């Protein structure tokens, strides 16, 4: 019986990951195309990036997106961590099924439904749509993802660590600060990053919840994409991918630094 990686498996991996990554690679590649035509390679150029710098509307939306992502991911992390604690630590409380249901449903719920319902809420309450309504929408979606990530960590959390801390004289608060928090921090960070990128990338919910003056970057990109394939869009996309990649690598590096160096 043969085990391990056979040529067949290698081919499947190459094809599968090729399928996932070739489109992204092409997109990045053609952002450096000197030609305006997609299919014709006209030589290397950073022309389109320079053009972006002059596009003030685009930069303004990028700034809106960043602020929304920052605020909503922080809120989502706080709320999501609380929700995860409630789910894992509070045993069976009344309404738990509804609570868990409301947390898991947005993970798969079509975005048009979430977007529409939020918009109707804001209109019904007479709230002007803008920065904060987008934040509210993104926080709601983000907190569910944070909950799932933190919950997974809490579920495998060895409670005897907290008991040991209390046994050694730490108050409940000191125990939380010295033991619980440092151990779930990586999961909270991962959840926060997830919420951040979800917010940065979201187009549908933002379209429903944004108002005048709060056009997000994906909304701007969408408008451009509808007009056709242009190297500018490639350039923005590449920058966005690069930005998220940079954050992820940074987070991974921080996590690695926090861990012990090898074993000696």
């Amino acid at each position, binding site marked *: 019986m043969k085990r391990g990686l056979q040529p067949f498996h290698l081919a499947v991996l190459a094809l599968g990951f090729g399928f996932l990554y070739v489109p992204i690679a092409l997109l990045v590649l053609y952002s450096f195309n000197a030609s305006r035509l997609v299919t014709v390679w006209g030589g290397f150029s950073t022309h389109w990036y320079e053009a972006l710098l002059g596009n003030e509307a685009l930069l303004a939306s990028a700034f809106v997106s960043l602020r929304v992502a920052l605020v909503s991911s922080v809120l989502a992390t706080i709320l999501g961590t609380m929700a995860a604690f409630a789910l894992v630590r509070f045993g069976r409380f009344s309404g738990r099924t509804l609570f868990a249901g409301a947390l898991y449903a947005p993970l798969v719920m079509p975005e048009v439904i979430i977007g529409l319902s939020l918009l109707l809420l804001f209109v019904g309450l007479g709230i002007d749509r803008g920065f904060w309504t987008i934040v509210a929408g993104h926080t709601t979606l983000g907190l569910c993802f944070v909950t799932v990530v933190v919950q997974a960590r809490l579920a495998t959390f060895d409670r*005897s*660590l907290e008991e040991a801390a*209390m*046994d*050694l004289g730490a*108050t409940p608060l000191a125990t939380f600060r010295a033991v619980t928090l440092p151990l779930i921090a990586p999961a909270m960070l991962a959840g926060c990053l997830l919420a951040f990128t979800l917010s940065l990338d979201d187009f549908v919910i933002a379209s429903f919840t944004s108002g005048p003056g709060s056009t997000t970057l994906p909304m701007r990109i969408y408008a451009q994409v509808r007009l056709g394939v242009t190297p500018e869009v490639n350039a923005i996309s590449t920058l966005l991918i690069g930005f998220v990649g940079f954050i992820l690598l940074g987070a991974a590096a921080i996590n690695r630094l926090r861990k012990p160096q090898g074993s000696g």
Partner: protein
Amino acid sequence: MDAQKPLLRIERVSKSYGEVTALRELSLDIAANEFFALLGPSGCGKTTLMRLIAGLEKPDAGRILLDSVDITHLPPHLRPVNMMFQSYALFPHMSVAKNIGFGLVQENLPRKEIATRVADMLGLVQMEGLGERRPDQLSGGQRQRVALARALVKRPKLLLLDEPLAALDRKLRHETQFQLMAAQRDTGTSFVVVTHDQDEAMVMAHRMAVMHAGVIEQIGTPRQVYEEPVSRHVAGFVGETNFFDGRVTHFMPGGVEVQTHSGLALEAGCREHPALGTRVVVSIRPENLRLGPPSQLVTNGAPGEITDHVFREGMSSWRVRLDGGDIVHVRQPIAAGTATYDRGARVFVAFAPECARALVR
């Protein structure tokens, strides 16, 4: 144990989880400077009892007194009791030294004093120079020693140890037993070990309590418990034994004669005074049974046939099917000149009445 006030007194403590009763009006005294073992199968309530002493659970009823102070409702971080967890519960994000010093930091002691006391503890558990390691860089035995050091550094009046040897391999377990005994002697702390392993309790403890279904069945020195078990459960749990079910037919000085269901008439020592006809079980340890040639006619015994014979750790072990149908286990040291019997041999199995116990419960 003398008539001094006990260090720890547990008074009629009960605890249940929903339908399940973990402890039933349990009382227990533990003296200062004592090495005490709580022994029992899983689910007998020994872990619950330990968690109640540590303050990690609250009893439904009863009191817990430490040095005559009622600590029943004191939260764990205010109790002068420390615990060594079965999983060791070493903080994975802290170095060995930080782990050991954690309890002292909570007391807001000066840094210098913390450093000295941590260094002392590292010495006590022979871990000098390993203070900067992380728990995941240690071997199982080293982790166990860090856990011990961390629990002892606060100089608790009482140290609870939850299955302290369970995670170690056989050989290391043996060595560690002696290290724990030495640590107890050197620090003068009372140790309460929770274990399901009767060997551990027998080796280490001054006194032990055998628990079953939420109550203590017997308290005594390991030798008392082994030689004079009070119940079928204790006899079966502590050491190996052979049981014969039967009824009391005669009284003898210090004992009774029992007619077993399989038709044997056995004499056995008995502490209680059961009425004639009472159902009892006779317990005889394998090392108290003797094998002899079938011709030998002795009272208190029965003929039978060897079904198995193994040799282990300097002892010969036989399984014998008695003619009445009972299967008994006989163990004897191998010494020069001892007769040996192979599978299929006819033998006579006998014992001295004072080595057997007739148990009412």
